[in-house]
């Protein structure tokens, strides 16, 4: 970050200054800054002063550059800051509103995509930890080369690393525990607690705001249980009461004493607000067993990632030799702190750059499209170019003017795009936070990062260079015939091979990519309309877990059901549980060849889960054939399942399903298929879609005895709308019931089913919106590009057409000759596009030419053809009306 900032400063301070001046100015600023920090002035005040000085220095440099701008003496300053060029650029924006609008939409969408991705990639792959020397905090992790995956059950190795490593110090570990937290008589809630080594606080180098953090004393077996809480909890639960120290807080079944409060924004190690001591005694576990730990530390003074890796590798080899049974395939590695948390251990800077370059290509395509549009406009300004050349303007001067114009065209949409990208990034961060338990990691910053702004600035310059400089270079090249005759109205400019090729590429691109994109967009839109086929607004849902797979819920669940059903506003209670883990992939139907059963992809993706015997009744879903589950089904040897209508239609072609057997095929050539399941009933669809029944995913239901599971989803149907009854009183009642059964049970947030579904739908709609936006842009560009180049080409042939008309050629034959050229160009584009769409079909799962969407390709081809004809028609008609004398005057 520091390097980036320096780079930015160098750019700012170099305006209007020599290198020597810039260096000594930076030196003066640094000297003064240090003096200020050494005096009583605060860090913040010094930073503010520094920023203000930089801005003022930039303004002075700019003033100097403009004041001394003289074409003969300081051409570069003139090029950068010529006010007339800027004014001309602004005027042209207003003069061609259509071109401005099309280009702006394209650039805004292009920048939004690339800047959003840049922000996302940066935040995910190379975030800056906002801690003192955050870049020196590293993660240590065992990589299992046999399984090609991380191995976090590294308690014994953690102790070895902590005791032996010298290049990484303060080695600590943490694990996240979900626990039910309660203070006083407030409503209990499930929270994420960091069980962390006390040295973890020393790694973070952040002191508590109130009280103390964890100490090695707290690690003793006999030490009382203590907890450090975060600022947000302190604020929301304790109203920032400083006497909170010493108060009791229950986590699960254990009372903890609050000993400290961490400052605002502190979420180390990830997004935690509760910290307790990690108690993991290696003597209690055999090597390779024990809790999954995340190990981290700080690089020692003078150590680097490479030296730490070298030291750790040696320790790892010793462990492999000493404990071959557990450590032979383990390679310990030193990683950037966030990589194991984001599960991106195997990515490096090269992958990141490649990803970013790929996304940057989107903008390059946009820039090329804008270049096509600007080219046609440039052609109409040949007279102006000729005048400027005659008055002594060099080619560089003219090209730089076009560059400035393109820069102005790109700047405003770029800002809009940046805002859009930031908005999308905010949504992405929100989704990530949901996955991480509700809060963003402490290193994620929602604000626009300087690096993102710098990147966008770079993109704007590249876009302007492509869109402005390319056409200008072409228009001003030697022998292009720029002379003052062009003032008479003829453009004289010939459309080279490159631009003819661009029309063809434009059409080909639209034909190749749009059908697949339209299909994806439509699918997303259709999916967003899918709704539950039962009164979802009467349901509330929450999850209950014991937190230990070896500890099933047993009678506690039956008790929970009994107590909930006794509540006056509860109309019904039922449970769901997850499906058997290996049941995924292709479905086989007994007696039907594998090829005769569709694959479970796209809308055929099967939703499967285990249900309680009364699940269908409580949801008001009828069994249309066969029977519902009974109490014995969970253990029956024929493994009964119930499918919905959508399933029978998709996989059994609507034939009678009851009595047939299905299974999941082996996912690997040597793998085992799942056991056979017998369909005992067909239920109504669990979902419905008002416009397309195919958008409803098929469902397969297993019988489970929920009391045998360690974690289940509870669906409670209320009498009337759930949302209106989701008050704190109801939530408290549920917590009370659960706590009365077993305070150790964990319970997730209680949410109205409709509300939970609404959030998913929002994400889907946003994706649909983004896809539609990109689609619209591509279509807009293709049409506008074809239109402007076609009309330009025909306008160029005005004189030729006029002369031919004067010589007696019929209008029909002339029009035929014009349109045949248009038709040939569009036709070549369509053919190439069709070939392209076949080529990309595998990548889009056959979307390009599949099913009803096959009609899209000809429609787009036709659209392009019509656009081409409309574009050619106007100029052609004008040419036909031209008088022969007028046509010959130019000669």
């Amino acid at each position, binding site marked *: 970050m520091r390097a980036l900032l320096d780079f930015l400063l160098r750019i700012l301070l170099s305006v209007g200054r020599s290198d*020597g001046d810039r*260096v*000594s*100015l930076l030196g*003066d600023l*640094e*000297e003064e800054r240090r003096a200020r920090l050494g005096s009583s002035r605060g860090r913040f005040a010094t930073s503010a002063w520094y920023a203000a*000085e930089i801005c003022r*220095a930039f303004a002075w440099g700019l003033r100097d550059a403009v004041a001394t701008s003289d074409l003969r003496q300081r051409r570069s300053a003139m090029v950068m800051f010529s006010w007339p060029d800027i004014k001309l650029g602004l005027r042209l924006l207003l003069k061609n509103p259509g071109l401005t609008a099309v280009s702006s939409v394209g650039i805004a969408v292009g920048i939004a995509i690339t800047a959003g991705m840049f922000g996302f990639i940066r935040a995910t792959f190379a975030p800056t930890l906002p801690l003192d020397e955050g870049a020196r905090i590293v993660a240590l992790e065992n990589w299992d080369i046999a399984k090609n995956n991380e191995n976090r059950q590294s308690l014994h190795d953690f102790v070895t690393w902590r005791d032996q490593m010298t290049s990484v110090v303060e080695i600590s570990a943490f694990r996240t525990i979900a626990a039910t937290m309660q203070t006083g008589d407030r409503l209990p809630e499930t929270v994420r607690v960091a069980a962390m080594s006390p040295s973890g606080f020393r790694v973070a180098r952040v002191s508590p705001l109130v009280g103390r953090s964890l100490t090695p004393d707290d690690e003793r077996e006999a030490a009382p249980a203590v907890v450090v809480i975060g600022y947000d909890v302190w604020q929301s639960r304790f109203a920032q009461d400083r006497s909170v120290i010493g108060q009791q807080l229950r986590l699960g079944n254990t009372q903890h004493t609050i000993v400290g409060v961490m400052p605002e924004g502190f979420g180390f190690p990830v997004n935690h607000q509760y910290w307790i001591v990690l108690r993991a005694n290696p003597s209690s576990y055999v090597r390779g067993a024990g809790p999954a730990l995340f190990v981290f530390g700080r690089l020692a003074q003078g150590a680097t990632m490479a030296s730490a890796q070298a030291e750790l590798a040696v320790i790892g080899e010793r462990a492999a030799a000493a404990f071959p049974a557990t450590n032979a395939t383990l390679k310990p590695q030193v990683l950037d702190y966030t990589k194991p948390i984001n599960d991106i251990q195997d990515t490096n800077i090269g992958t990141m750059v490649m990803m970013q370059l790929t996304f940057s290509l989107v903008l390059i395509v946009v820039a090329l499209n804008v270049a096509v549009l600007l080219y046609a406009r440039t052609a109409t300004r040949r007279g102006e170019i000729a005048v400027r050349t005659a008055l002594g303007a060099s080619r560089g001067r003219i090209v730089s003017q076009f560059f400035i114009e393109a820069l102005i065209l790109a700047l405003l949409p770029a800002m809009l795009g940046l805002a859009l990208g930031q908005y999308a990034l905010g949504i992405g961060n929100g989704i990530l936070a949901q996955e991480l338990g509700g809060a963003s990691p402490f290193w994620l910053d929602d604000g626009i990062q300087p690096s993102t702004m710098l990147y966008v600035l770079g993109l704007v310059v590249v876009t302007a260079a492509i869109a402005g400089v390319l056409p200008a270079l072409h228009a001003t090249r030697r022998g292009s015939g720029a002379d003052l005759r062009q003032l008479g109205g003829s453009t004289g400019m010939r459309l080279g091979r490159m631009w003819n090729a661009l029309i063809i590429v434009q059409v080909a691109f639209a034909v190749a990519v749009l059908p697949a994109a339209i299909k994806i967009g439509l699918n997303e839109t259709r999916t967003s309309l899918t709704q539950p086929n039962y009164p979802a607004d009467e349901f509330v849902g929450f999850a209950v877990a014991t937190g230990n797979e070896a500890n099933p819920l047993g009678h506690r669940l039956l008790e929970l059901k009994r107590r909930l059903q006794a509540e006056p506003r509860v109309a019904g209670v039922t449970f769901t549980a997850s499906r058997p883990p290996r049941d995924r992939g292709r479905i086989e139907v007994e007696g039907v060849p594998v090829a005769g059963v569709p694959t479970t992809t796209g809308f055929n993706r099967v939703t499967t889960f285990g249900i309680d015997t009364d699940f269908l009744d409580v949801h008001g879903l009828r069994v249309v054939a066969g029977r519902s589950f009974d109490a014995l089904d969970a253990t029956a040897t024929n493994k009964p399942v119930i499918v919905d209508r959508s399933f029978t239609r998709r996989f059994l072609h609507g034939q009678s399903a009851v009595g047939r057997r299905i299974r999941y095929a082996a996912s690997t050539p040597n793998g085992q298929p799942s056991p056979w399941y017998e369909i005992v009933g067909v239920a109504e669809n669990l979902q419905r879609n008002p416009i397309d029944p195919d958008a409803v995913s098929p469902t397969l239901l297993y019988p489970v005895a929920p009391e045998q599971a360690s974690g289940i989803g509870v669906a409670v149907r209320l009498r009337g709308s759930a949302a209106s009854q989701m008050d704190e009183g109801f939530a408290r009642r549920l917590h009370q019931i659960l706590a009365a059964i077993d305070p150790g049970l964990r319970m997730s947030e209680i949410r109205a089913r409709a509300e939970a579904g609404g959030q998913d739908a929002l994400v889907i709609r946003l994706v649909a919106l983004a896809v539609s936006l990109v689609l619209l842009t591509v279509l807009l560009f293709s049409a506008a590009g074809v239109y402007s180049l076609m009309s330009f080409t025909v306008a160029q042939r005005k004189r030729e057409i006029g002369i031919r008309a004067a010589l007696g050629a019929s209008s029909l034959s002339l029009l035929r000759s014009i349109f045949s050229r248009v038709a040939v160009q569009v036709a070549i584009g369509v053919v190439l596009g069709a070939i392209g769409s076949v080529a990309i079909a595998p990548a889009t799962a056959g979307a390009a030419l599949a099913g009803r969407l096959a009609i899209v390709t000809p429609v787009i081809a036709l659209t392009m053809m019509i656009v081409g004809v409309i574009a050619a028609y106007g100029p052609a008609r004008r040419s036909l009306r031209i008088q022969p004398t007028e046509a010959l005057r130019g000669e």
Partner: protein
Amino acid sequence: MPAYLGEFEQLVLLALARLGEDAYGVTIRAILMERTKRKPSFGAIYSTLRRMEEKGLVRSFQGEPEAVRGGRAKKYVALTVRGRSALREAHGAVVRMAEGVSL
């Protein structure tokens, strides 16, 4: 052609005359702040110095890089003969104009 000086240019030249061999950005700014009670920015000082150097009123030379400056060298500035005479002229003009005027 004689060089006419602006007010801030005069102040900067006077600062150089006072500082002698130790005149560079930080000391120039410090003495201006101390004696004029203004807070000129470094940008303004550098722009003024550059302008006066182009007119031949001051000359500059690089010092050694220093750690306290983040490893960057100082740019020392000194009055030239032409600068000193322009300063004398400007000061004289102000004194002559002010003669007999009650302020």
